[in-house]
């Protein structure tokens, strides 16, 4: 019986066997691609912009400006409570050390007055945080008329008095 199929036709039919199912890989690929595009958009192209930040999140140089301003205000007003509250905002691990280190940098850069103010606040804070000896008088460290003495610490050199 002639079926109308020669050798070539048979081969052709074999090639048209149904392709095996690929599974939902295309769906997963789409999900991953979309997720990655979403991340690229939100992390690089259009990230969340913070407009109400805390002083602790400031860049180090701005923290230094903030710290220095606190120290200068303290040197003018002698208001230790306010200075301490403001310094707390910077979340420094050791505020005295941070002030001392910045004072040293300011001194090295030739900003003697700023270094003095920073060292002054560091010294007063250190005295304030030290346990009081029972024999010591319990007078306030600062008063409106008192002259503030800078007490050197291990990390701070005494600021050299300027001839202003």
């Amino acid at each position, binding site marked *: 019986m002639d079926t109308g199929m020669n050798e070539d036709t048979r081969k052709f039919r074999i090639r048209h066997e149904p392709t095996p199912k690929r599974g939902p890989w295309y769906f997963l690929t789409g999900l991953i691609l979309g*997720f990655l595009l979403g991340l690229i958009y*939100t992390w690089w192209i259009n990230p969340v912009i913070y407009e109400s*930040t805390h002083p602790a999140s400031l860049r180090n140089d*701005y923290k230094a400006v*903030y710290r220095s*301003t606190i120290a200068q205000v303290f040197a003018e007003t002698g208001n230790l409570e306010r200075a301490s509250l403001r310094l707390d905002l910077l979340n420094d691990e050791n505020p005295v050390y941070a002030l001392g280190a910045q004072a040293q940098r300011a001194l090295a850069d030739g900003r003697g007055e700023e270094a003095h103010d920073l060292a002054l606040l560091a010294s007063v804070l250190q005295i304030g945080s030290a346990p009081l000896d029972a024999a010591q008088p319990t007078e306030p460290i600062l008063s409106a008329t008192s002259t503030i003495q800078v007490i050197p610490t291990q990390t701070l050199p005494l600021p050299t008095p300027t001839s202003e």
Partner: protein
Amino acid sequence: MRRKTRRWGFFLLATLVGLAVGIAFGWLILPVQYTSTGLHTLRVDYKTDFVLMVAELYHHQGDAAMALARLRYLRETSPLDIVQEAIAYAEAHRYAPGDLQMMRNLSSAIQDLPLEWD
């Protein structure tokens, strides 16, 4: 042919779903954390406190130009606006009269100076 079209449709749908999940993740769950911000990004109460510090320094030193230079760190459109906003915030939150007065004095002082930002 129909199967291929359907597959593309599902692929696009999956991409859109992934995109939505990615955006939610990147904005809400794990947004970029900036740890190096400038003073201009501070919350209004901290900005007000910075302005108060500048006002305190101006009160004791009387140097308006230096006060202006310090306000420059806040990088707003106008230093006068910064001080006015700070005064408004301080009034609303009942700052001490002395502090308010110092900020008002600062505001008056910088009004007389050239106020262009670089």
